[in-house]
């Protein structure tokens, strides 16, 4: 797997320019699963925030179908709940895995949840509320640009 990926990547570099600084990066953050009680803290030291599209939060979910209702992701800073996103994964594909995007205004929020207060700092405590669904895991990532 890794070898194939490597060869493809390096092969495609053949016609490319020298290495350059990139404006946008994906930051994988935490896995929420049964081993951590679907809750985890994120120590965010680089100071970057979500300000505008294409920046976003990615919530990749594995859950048994059919869903009984929305799944909620909660963000806590200190003792204060600062965000609660209601995620409605699309039903049409009926797949166990779904990737939701929580976006600033102006982008399409896959699963319907948006960032209301900007800039958004990713650090803090996150937990998942399954609301009667059988959620097996979730992965959080942040796509950020300079």
């Amino acid at each position, binding site marked *: *797997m*890794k070898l194939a990926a490597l060869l493809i990547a390096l092969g495609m570099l053949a016609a490319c*320019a020298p*290495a350059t600084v990139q404006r946008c*990066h994906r930051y994988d953050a935490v*896995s929420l699963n049964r081993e951590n009680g679907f809750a985890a803290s994120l120590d965010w030291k680089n100071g970057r925030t979500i300000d505008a599209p294409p920046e976003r939060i990615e919530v990749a979910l594995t859950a048994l179908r059919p869903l009984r209702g929305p799944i909620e992701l909660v963000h806590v800073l200190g003792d204060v709940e600062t965000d609660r996103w209601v995620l409605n994964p699309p039903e049409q594909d009926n797949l*166990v895995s779904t990737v939701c995007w929580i976006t600033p205004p102006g982008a399409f929020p896959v699963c319907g949840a948006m960032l209301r207060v900007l800039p958004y700092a990713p650090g803090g405590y996150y937990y998942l509320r399954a609301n009667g669904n059988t959620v097996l895991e979730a992965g*959080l*990532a942040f796509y950020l640009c300079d």
Partner: protein
Amino acid sequence: MQGRAAVWGIVLVSVMLGHAAPVAAQVPICAPPSPSEPYYTACAPGGRIAAARMLFDLTVDHIFKPDSGQLLRRPVDVLRAIVSDETLEKNAGLRAYLDGLAPLTLTKIDTATGLAELTVADDARRFSGPLAVGETPVSLTIQLPPKISGGYWRTPGVLQMAFWEGQRAKVGLTMPDGRSIDAEIECLAVSTDGLRIVTAGATPDVIVRFEDCP
């Protein structure tokens, strides 16, 4: 026993990468991207679908086959899933080489983590030949240790795979204009956004984007 294995896996990965990680297997194992550092970049708009398929298949195997022990992934099958038939036809030598490699074995530790291992036969430890991708043929060399091994961290949205020092693949590319890239692969991160390759030493890391292509 399984819990002890998980702790050891994460400790080893942390030591290998040279940065502290909690002994709670729920955080990534590749070093995060560094916005101030230069990257080699490429773009593959079709890679998103292939990456999504690979991540989905791994999720199904990893989550819904919890007692199956080991998962196998053949390198050439992944190559077939990502590149076009035309590209494969142009790289028959490389395809034959990959066909001869043993499967990569993934051993699950918990929901998010596991160990990866690929045993390399003596006659498969070195490959040298042309690599035809697009219009520009390049010269490719691959050097593999007797055993490639490391740990992985996954979610439904990403697979990160880190390799122990001394058990990593080394790849060299020489372009027609004389430029060359020599990379020792320390860590891989595959998501639907793209592929990030963390290299050891001074070689810039690599990003292949699946979206926002020019």
